[in-house]
């Protein structure tokens, strides 16, 4: 078949080929769709990591002393830790002193009183990202934009541009419901009692190498508090972008769902193309009290590096949800298509009786990408339930690993787990691996784990081809079918985006 690169370079296309197709192919052919960067003056802290940098980050965020101390303690702990090596990922050693730990757009040096002050180039960035917003208007600082009718479903966005939250929308409406949705730096200033109580209570400061690093240097992130009995009136969403070269991005997200509340949180990411690898170590903590429910959905589409493994994001993420109260419920859904290296295990601690944890994941690794991702389900309470559905797709020379733990503690009587891990291989140069840990310490619980590994079914391919699809379309369709269980778990807005992403991520993997 004709490769995309050839199509792209041919200016004279055969008759009968629709011009739209040519344009579309040209746009995506072999190139990363979001591979551009906006030229904005950045305010950098000097390269490297030291107590002074930690203090500087704290100072820049106008943090109180207790927060600075917290960070410094984390920094001290970090010095005693070593990078984990157990994951099936292989990358050149990271020089942690060769990173910027703080960068923010210059225009933020003076906090804008209104969004009018926001650098227009920033807004341009959001536009290119395709942020589905009336929020565009709000971010642009249009007076009274909050009152303008939103088309379709409402999504509140806390947009993170590199390290600083530049605009938070729908504040008023959320406020009316009593929901706090702001940047974590704002929360540290405005709601210290909540932050003090919950920060580090799910992912302790010294949990792991990257979480400890994050605790010391996190520059910003999102904070959500949903009060008792409140159903959050809209989906909350954060778009992360890494824009500056050589900037580590260290977000910290803290979500608290108080008794009987509900919130759905969307996280989506794109990053511009860079030649040098970039480091990302985020921490997400979720606290779910009695009868509360949290849905956390992620589409991770950072720059994966080129076909030869040059560049790309290193993504080391610690995400954990703690179902503290009885009947608490959490659902992680993730579509991981980007990053050169992914190291990520969103976990559920099922502490409350009858609490539930779910994990739905699609991980696609193409070209030279390496993904080591999965989940942990720690059953502590009685009659707790968990479900894991993981779909891994490997293509090119990529390595894709599912790594997970299901643990039934002696007191977690009558609990239940079901795990389904399927891997699909496209091409004979890639790898698909499954590393589940299963620990059952009582007999009234049932644990079931199933995993399969196979290639794209020849019959399905033949059927699609015989209906006139080209090979890439056919693969995209078959793979989308393979991922169906997970795609269905995503909120509508993301499901569409994710479906398209699945196809885009696999470009160039066949033929």
């Amino acid at each position: 078949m004709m490769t995309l690169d050839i199509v792209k370079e041919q200016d004279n296309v055969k008759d009968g080929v629709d011009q739209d197709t040519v344009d579309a192919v040209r746009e995506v052919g072999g190139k990363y769709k979001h591979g551009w960067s906006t030229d904005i003056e950045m305010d950098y802290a000097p390269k490297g990591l030291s107590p002074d940098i930690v203090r500087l980050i704290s100072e820049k965020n106008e943090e109180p002393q207790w927060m600075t101390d917290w960070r410094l303690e984390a920094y001290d702990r970090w010095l005693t830790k070593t990078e984990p090596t157990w994951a099936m990922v292989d990358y050149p050693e990271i020089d942690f002193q060769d990173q910027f730990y703080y960068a923010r757009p210059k225009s933020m040096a003076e906090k804008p009183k209104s969004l009018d002050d926001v650098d227009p180039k920033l807004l341009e960035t959001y536009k290119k990202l395709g942020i589905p917003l009336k929020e565009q208007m709000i971010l642009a600082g249009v007076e009274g934009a909050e009152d303008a009718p939103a088309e379709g479903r409402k999504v509140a966005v806390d947009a993170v541009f590199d390290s600083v939250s530049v605009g938070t929308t729908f504040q008023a409406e959320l406020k009316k419901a009593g929901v706090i949705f702001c940047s974590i730096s704002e929360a540290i200033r405005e709601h210290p009692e909540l932050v003090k109580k919950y920060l580090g209570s799910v992912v302790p400061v010294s949990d792991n190498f990257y979480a400890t690093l994050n605790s010391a240097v996190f520059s910003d992130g999102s904070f959500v508090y949903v009060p008792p009995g409140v159903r959050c009136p809209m989906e909350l969403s954060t778009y992360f972008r890494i824009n500056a070269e050589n900037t580590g991005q260290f977000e910290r997200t803290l979500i608290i769902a108080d008794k009987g509340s509900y919130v759905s949180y969307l996280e989506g990411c794109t990053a511009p193309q860079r030649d040098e690898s970039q480091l990302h170590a985020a921490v997400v903590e979720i606290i779910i009290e009695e009868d509360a429910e949290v849905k956390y959905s992620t589409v991770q589409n950072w720059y994966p590096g080129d076909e030869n493994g040059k560049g790309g994001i290193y993504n080391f993420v610690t995400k954990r949800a703690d179902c503290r109260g009885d009947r608490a419920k959490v659902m992680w859904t993730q579509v991981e298509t980007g990053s050169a290296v992914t190291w990520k295990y969103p976990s559920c601690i099922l502490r409350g009786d009858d609490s539930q944890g779910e994990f739905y994941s699609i991980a696609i690794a193409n070209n030279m990408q390496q993904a080591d991702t999965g989940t942990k389900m720690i059953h502590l309470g009685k009659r707790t339930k968990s479900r894991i559905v993981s779909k891994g797709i490997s293509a090119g020379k990529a390595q894709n690993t599912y790594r997970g733990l299901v643990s039934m503690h002696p007191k977690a009587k009558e609990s239940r787990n079901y795990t389904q891990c399927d891997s699909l291989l496209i091409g004979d140069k890639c790898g698909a691996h499954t590393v589940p840990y299963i620990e059952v310490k009582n007999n009234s619980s049932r644990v079931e784990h199933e995993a399969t590994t196979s290639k794209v079914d020849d019959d399905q391919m033949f059927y699609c081809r015989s209906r006139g699809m080209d090979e890439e379309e056919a693969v995209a369709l078959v793979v989308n079918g393979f991922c169906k269980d997970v795609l269905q778990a995503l909120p509508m807005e993301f499901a569409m985006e994710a479906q398209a992403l699945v196809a885009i991520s696999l470009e160039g993997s066949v033929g």
Partner: protein
Amino acid sequence: MARTAEKTNLTDARIAALSIPGRGWSVPAREDAVNRLRAMGLPDRRDEYWKYTRPDTLTQVTPEPAAVFENDEAPLFDGIDRVKIVFVDGVFDAEASDDLSLEGVRIERLAEANSDLHWARDLYGTLETNGQTPVARPLAALNTAFATDGMLIHVTGAASKPISIVYRHESTTSDVILHHLIKLDAGAELTVLENGPAAARFNKVMEVEVGDGASFHHVRAQGRDHERRAATHVFARLGAESTFKSFTLTVNGVMTRNDCVIELTGDDASAHVAGACVGDGAFHHDDTVFVTHDAVNCESRQVFKKVLRNGATGVFQGKILVKAGAQKTDGYQISQSLLLDEDSQFLAKPELEIYADDVACSHGSTSGAIDEDALFYLRSRGVPLAEATDMLTLSFLAEAVEEIEAETLRDEINTRMAAWLGRRRG
């Protein structure tokens, strides 16, 4: 991970307490093994593959004493026409053993094979060495270095009857290291039976080279002694169109670690490894299985079933590794536990590592109690509770036992399991 001083000290102390036995062809291989062992160090809890099993009683210089168990059952495999080889606490017992002659097979003892041109020279320690990557198996290197005896079996044709190795345990403090080497030439056939508790602490390695088109069957029952400890390794390399089948029954034993490392190197080969274990009380049983597919169109099956009660622990760590180019691989792995009470536990790590695309690999792992519905059904048909529980337990174990090809052997194993269920210790 940085190696701890304790690990180095432990390894040095263990090596210092042992000496390479004898002279002759095996010495270079044994010296290499000592170096390997020093380089990797004896296992501790920080090692990934010892996460669920405490290795200390297997690695310490002096073994924990183990009382000899008065077994009231008739010896296993007694009714089978076989060539019997007896070791008492690791010492070959010529009187109790049969004449070591069998048509198409040459049977010798490691301790006595001194000729420098011995066929075993090229095989001793080689499969063990291959089996050290990607996961270190230090206890096997220790074995290669310091094994005091073992059988060297060279099969050139189809053996007319099985070779049966019986391990008796009479001394409460015996610490035994045996190393068997089995080589099957192209087209050869052999069945090896092993049974008995062997020693207070038993370290055994069996290296099996299965030639093209050859077939090897292995049925083993580890002794009923409650206090015995064992670390065993089977290393097998399979040629084209060859067959390897191994089944292990473990009843009791305070600590058992069975490693099985199989490499399919010839096209169209088939390897089946199965285990049934029934554990009670102070019982820790670990099956660690590593199957590597390095040829086209091979098949592998791992079937492990564990019945646990009164606080027994069962561990399964299994891996199917499909190397690049090993297309048309059919790999299957199942590990299941039946927990008969609240105190028992099952810890599993069933892994797949796959670098070829045209494969069908799957694994499953489950854990739970006896199915209440099935129990209710049987009771509603007038079957008493205890009997119904036994029936369901045996049917749970059946998938593993069915991996034994010979019906007579299968029946013997089933009888033993039923007897265990009937005893209801404690």
